[in-house]
């Protein structure tokens, strides 16, 4: 059966889908590659648009110069900090609350669960949100990055559905042996929900890393700026930034390799993208499994 010869029609169909997917995959990956080869090639060639498919006159000046821009290192620390702490808290609380919501005996369970889920659909709006955050003294405050993410309805739905798919007899036998809710959560639920927790981890880490609007609104003090926010600013101000790099005495560039606005912009972009590109492959295998069980049943 398997070895059946392909008909002409099927052959054309196969060639067609291979080509289509090939093209789309290329379009997804080429921009990143393009950025990378441009940041490590001679800035003159890059500015002339001569670097298209492979790097030429490779150098890493752009990175060493851009990384020394004051504030960038600090912004990176802020980004890493909010990603690590925010993700841990989000995953922990999503797992715990999602588990609690599977307990039918909880007082008012369906009301609480629904009131958490509907928040996916409405928001008070920008101004009321800003005023609330301001009144809670969460402007220019690290906690503003961490606290609001604790409740992420989508994650809670994922965990709840996943836990409901676990055979109840496992939990029952543990509670017969005298295990309380906490004990069951740690010893049974957490180990069994690893795929979904890994999925939530990458979701929430990527969200934290990519968040940008909250900084734009809530933070005026530069010490709370994140990489993402600086990137946005540099996209708008990269000419002055390039001038700054060129003119600072300790960074005197060789004349042949002046930092241009484009090279600075590309380098900063690359620095913000890289962590995601590096971490991504390690988590990719969890997605299908985690998403499948969690989301379809909603």
């Amino acid at each position, binding site marked *: 059966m398997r070895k059946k010869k392909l008909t002409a029609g099927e052959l054309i169909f196969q060639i067609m*889908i291979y080509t289509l997917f090939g093209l789309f995959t290329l379009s997804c990956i080429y921009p*990143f590659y393009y950025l990378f080869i441009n940041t490590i090639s001679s800035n003159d060639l890059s500015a002339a648009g001569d670097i298209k498919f492979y790097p030429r006159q490779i150098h890493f000046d752009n990175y060493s110069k851009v990384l020394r821009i004051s504030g960038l290192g600090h912004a990176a620390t802020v980004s890493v900090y909010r990603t690590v702490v925010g993700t841990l808290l989000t995953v922990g609380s999503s797992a715990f609350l999602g588990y609690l919501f599977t307990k039918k005996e909880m007082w008012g369970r369906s009301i609480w669960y629904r009131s958490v889920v509907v928040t996916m659909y409405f928001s008070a709006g920008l101004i*009321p949100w800003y*005023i609330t955050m301001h009144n809670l003294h969460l402007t220019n405050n690290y906690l503003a990055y961490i606290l609001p993410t604790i409740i992420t309805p989508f994650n809670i739905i994922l965990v709840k559905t996943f836990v409901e798919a676990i055979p109840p007899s496992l939990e029952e036998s543990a509670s017969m042996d005298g295990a309380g809710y906490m004990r069951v959560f740690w010893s049974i639920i957490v180990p069994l929900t690893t795929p979904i927790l890994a999925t939530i981890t990458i979701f929430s880490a990527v969200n934290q890393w990519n968040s940008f609007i909250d900084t734009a609104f809530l933070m005026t003090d530069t010490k709370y700026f994140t990489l993402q926010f600086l990137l946005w600013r540099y996209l708008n101000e990269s000419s002055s930034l390039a001038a700054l790099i060129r003119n600072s005495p300790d960074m005197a560039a060789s004349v042949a390799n002046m930092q241009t606005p484009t090279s600075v912009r590309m380098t900063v972009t690359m620095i913000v993208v890289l962590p995601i590109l590096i971490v*991504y492959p390690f988590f990719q295998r969890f997605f299908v499994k985690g998403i499948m069980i969690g989301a379809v049943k909603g």
Partner: protein
Amino acid sequence: MGVPAGELLPSVDPVHRSRWKMKNKHKLFFMAFPFLVVTFIFYYLPISGWIYAFYDFIPGIPLSDTPYVGLKWFKTIVSNPTQTAEVLRVLKNTLAMSSLGLITSIFPVIFAIMLTEIKSGWYRKLVQTLTTIPNFISWILVYALAFSLFSVDNGVITHILVQLGVVDEGYNFLASSSNIWVTMIVWYWWKSLGWGAILYLAAIAGIDQELYEAVEVDGASRFRKIWHITIPGLIPTFFVLLLLSIGNLVNNGMEQYFAFQNAMNKDSIEVLDLYVYNIAFANNFPFATAVSMLKSVVSVILLFAANTLSKMVRDESII
């Protein structure tokens, strides 16, 4: 409470069980309580800010010192012709882009079906891995990439298109207002197609293989297998996602449009959320609040409509 324990659990020791349940009923609630407080603070408390829509609020002056104006700001939406035109323009953009999104939400289904048709395992894996990457970068970064590829001076795509004679020298894709809706939906799918297909790939993997074998015996062609088994298997998932997105029709976020907006394309790119942001930045707080209030009301109505529809069609509620 209220129901006799024996009726709930006709087990060996009903009295003991019911006491255990009673104790845990509140214990569980107290365990969840801190999280419910957080939900209240960050999702429900801000709603009290809707009160600003009824005052002539100016940032910096306390609310108690500002005059109460009732429905003034809501009335301006309908009574002031320029304002009405503005809101209609923004509404048109919002609905246009949301509907384009709804119409094209069939893309991930097609993507998933075609991907499973690929025979080579490594190629399938490679495509799946690489096409999900764009989903994980922010819109600011997408814009940064778009800028590098399409900028007039040194964007590589612009260069190639000029060399091929498709566009004139100096055509500025990013600053053009024409086709911006289509451009936005293309970027949207560039970012989310591979990711969106994951759900359907999972659903296809969950289809009973025996069904395929059964029709194979009957001599069904590849196309017939897709038509009679794969597609019916995907319809429930498709429906759930479609209904969920109906609730978000006016709620299409702002990050994408914020990243891509500029003076040239602003008229056609401004969606409701971005509009609220822009008028808020022009310091018109009460009007911005009024608009976002209406938006939330419409969202909730749409959500309940979709929910009713879901109950009717699939006998299953989504919230």
